[in-house]
C-alpha cells in the first residue's frame, strides 16, 4: 500500500508540473500546505493508517507532522503549544536535513 499511495501522490505532483506553470518549488510548498490543512481537518491520519510510509514520506506527510505535533502540544500546554509543537515534532527531520545537507554540499562538487 505504501507503494501505491506514495506513487499516486507523486503522480499528482507530476500532473501539476506538466499541466500548470507551477515549478517544483511551488509544488513542494503547495503539498506541505495541503498536507497541513488536510491534517487539521482530520483527513490525513486515516491515509497514514492506510498507507504508512506511502503517506508520511511524500511532502504532504511533513505538513501532517507539523500539524499533529502542534495539536499534540496544544493538548499538553494549551495556547503556547501553538508555538512549540510544529518544530518539536519535525526536529529530527529538520536537523538531519540541515546537517546532512551542509556536510554533503561541503564534501561534494557539482558534476560537469
Amino acid at each position, binding site marked *: 500500500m505504501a*507503494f501505491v499511495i506514495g506513487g499516486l501522490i507523486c503522480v499528482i505532483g507530476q500532473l501539476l508540473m506538466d499541466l500548470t506553470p507551477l515549478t517544483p518549488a511551488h509544488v513542494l510548498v503547495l503539498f506541505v500546505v495541503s498536507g497541513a490543512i488536510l491534517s487539521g481537518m482530520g483527513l490525513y491520519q486515516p491515509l497514514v493508517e492506510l498507507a504508512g510510509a506511502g503517506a508520511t514520506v511524500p511532502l504532504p506527510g511533513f505538513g501532517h507532522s507539523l500539524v499533529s505535533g502542534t495539536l499534540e502540544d*496544544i493538548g499538553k500546554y494549551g495556547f503556547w503549544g501553538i*508555538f512549540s509543537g510544529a518544530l518539536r515534532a519535525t526536529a529530527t527531520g529538520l536537523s538531519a536535513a540541515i546537517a546532512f545537507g551542509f556536510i554533503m554540499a561541503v564534501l561534494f562538487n557539482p558534476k560537469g
Partner: protein
Amino acid sequence: MTIKEKEKQNYQERFNQVKPKPPIFKNIIWAFIIGGLICTLGQYIQDYFVSIGFSKKDAGGPTSAVLIFLGAFFTGLGVYDELGRLAGAGSIVPITGFANSIVAPAMEWKREGYVFGVGAKMFTIAGPVIVYGTVTAMLVGFIRWLMG
C-alpha cells in the same frame, strides 16, 4: 483586428503547435514507479525502527533522517539528479527530494563562499517549504485552539 494583432495571433497559434509538449503519460508512469519505490524503501526503514523498539509514531523521525541522508548523499554523488531526469515528481515529492533541494543549490553556489553560498542557498527551496508549512500549522493550531 489590425494586421499586427493578427500576426501576433498567428504567431501564438504556430508557437503552440510547435512547442514541445511534455510526454505526460510517460512522465506519470515513471513518477508513480520511482515515487512508489522510495516510499516502499521508507516503509522498510520504518519497519526496522519499529522492530528495534520505536513506536510506529516515534519511528517517523529516524526514518526521515535516514531517507534525508540517502537523498543528500546521492545528490552529492550526482546520482539523484540523473534519477530526477527520469522520475520527475517521483524524485521531488518524497522527503529525499527535500534533501536534494537543499544539497543541489548549496553545492552549485559554493563558489559564493560558505556564508552567502552554501549557508544561504541551502534554503532556496527548503526555506519556503519550512516557512509556509510552519505558518500553516500554527494557523491550523490556533483555529483548533479557538474551537477548544
